[in-house]
């Protein structure tokens, strides 16, 4: 009896500090944010009403969904192309692919966004080069708009899209591919009718991760969008620091959490968490 008691005590004592820390520093303040959404500036459901009726908020939500969808398609496609080589290439190809995936992955989001500014701005590398070869006379507007946001976000999210895909491609049975080839199927046909369908769980997992990440993305859109294509996260920031309209900022945050939670629940119905890494 004493043994069981001390077992429980031991577990409780070891687990308590982190749980207590997260309750005090995270769960409780989140409830405070929920409270803000119902009480500021006046008590009631006014802020949630504003979410539905305010055309600005609506256009930001629609833009966020649109950008997230485009970024998801671009990132997953690009990630698929490089993951094939990372998982199934020759040893040299694999090392090179790994380098190209991991180096950007470990570099901070600010440095990466700045790199795109340096490439895409009016006096950046691409415009300077296109003008010097006489291809264009006026610089193209490549940044501080939606194009820049999509490019920067896809760049950030490709490495995240790679991991679920790599896991799916690694667990795929070689012999099925060899059988398809042996039965006379062409390379392309084997790829489209055998390889891609067999990595379906990886594609779903990777698309969901990228989509969910895109919804709450802040830094890249704020820098590369230049205030012109505001997404949900930047709208929250502006509501809290520039309006200041804490109630609306809190209400948008709550809606975002509920939406992302629903998407994650959907994801885990189709893909086991283990398959994502």
């Amino acid at each position, binding site marked *: 009896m004493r043994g069981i008691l001390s077992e429980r005590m031991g577990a409780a004592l070891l687990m308590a500090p982190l749980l207590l820390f997260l309750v005090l520093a995270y769960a409780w303040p989140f409830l405070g944010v929920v409270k803000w959404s119902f009480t500021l500036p006046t008590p009631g459901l006014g802020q949630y009403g504003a979410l539905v009726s305010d055309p600005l908020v609506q256009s930001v939500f629609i833009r966020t969904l649109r950008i997230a969808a485009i970024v998801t398609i671009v990132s997953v496609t690009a990630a698929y192309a490089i993951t094939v*080589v990372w998982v199934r290439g020759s040893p040299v190809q694999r090392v090179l692919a790994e380098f190209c995936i991991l180096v950007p992955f470990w570099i901070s989001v600010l440095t990466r966004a700045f790199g795109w500014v340096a490439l895409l701005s009016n006096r950046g590398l691409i415009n300077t080069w296109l003008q010097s070869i006489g291809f264009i006379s006026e610089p193209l507007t490549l940044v501080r708009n939606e194009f820049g946001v999509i490019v920067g976000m896809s760049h950030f999210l490709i490495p995240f899209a790679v991991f679920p895909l790599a896991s799916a491609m690694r667990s795929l049975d070689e012999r099925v591919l060899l059988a398809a080839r042996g039965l006379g199927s062409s390379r392309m046909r084997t790829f489209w009718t055998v390889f891609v369908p067999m990595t379906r769980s990886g594609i779903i997992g990777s698309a969901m991760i990228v989509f969910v990440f895109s919804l709450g993305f802040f830094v890249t859109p704020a820098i590369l969008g230049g205030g012109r294509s505001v997404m949900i996260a930047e709208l929250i920031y502006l509501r809290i620091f520039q309006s200041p309209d804490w109630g609306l900022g809190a209400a948008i945050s709550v809606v975002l959490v509920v939406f992302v939670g629903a998407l994650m629940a959907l994801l885990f119905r189709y893909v086991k968490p283990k398959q994502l890494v």
Partner: protein
Amino acid sequence: MPTYRPGPVSLILAVLVALFLLLPLLAVIPVSLTPSRMLTMPTGELSLRHYRSLIEDPRWLDSILLSIRIGVVSSALSTVLALTFSLGVWMFQPRFTAALVGFVLLPMVVPPVVSAVTLYFLLTSVSGISSFFGYDTWLGVAMAHSVMTVPFATVLILVSLSQLDRRIDLAARGLGASVWERATRVIMPNIKFGIVTAALLSFVLSWEEIGVTLFITSVNAITLPRLMWMGLRDNIDPAIAALSVILIIITVLVLAVRSVVTRRQATP
């Protein structure tokens, strides 16, 4: 060794993606060498003035030191909390473990901007009580960073515990070791690589954290990413290019060392 190799079409596409991934990292190199005060390509002569301004301008040095201090404190806090929690989970396997671990992972799953609003709420509430712990203080930032990094530290430590042979701990227990002795003299030495990795990852995540930091600092606690952010939003300062080049070189070196070390361990 895979026998089904990618064909020429796959290789061409992969090279294009690889270029896309590396291009923005390479683009900062020429920009960092421009003699101009503005963000441009060098048109002839090269200059190191932006690298010099990193050393000479006290703001950069101050923010680097502050980021290191916050990183060390938040990494220590989140590693200790993650370690004790993971030991509890592994040694006692209590009921509701899945739910408790799920709760701990929340800050990793919730959109960062929502965590930022949450921590903003926390620190502005605390500001009324304590002047050195709330909004725009370095301790406040360190605590907020711990909230954000603790799920990653927990995952890493739980993964290294899951690879540990339970029979080692059972033997120690059978020989009469107390919980404390089992934890500190049997289990921890066996997962020390995981603990060190968790601490390093927490430090790196805190070092480059910007999403939350923007919400909880204004003029006093200016971390390095926060300073970069200010330079990026207003008029773009080419000193950021010089700093980016240095950060990229450090990252590449660390990854190179790591891959050499792990290859050596893989082929003894």
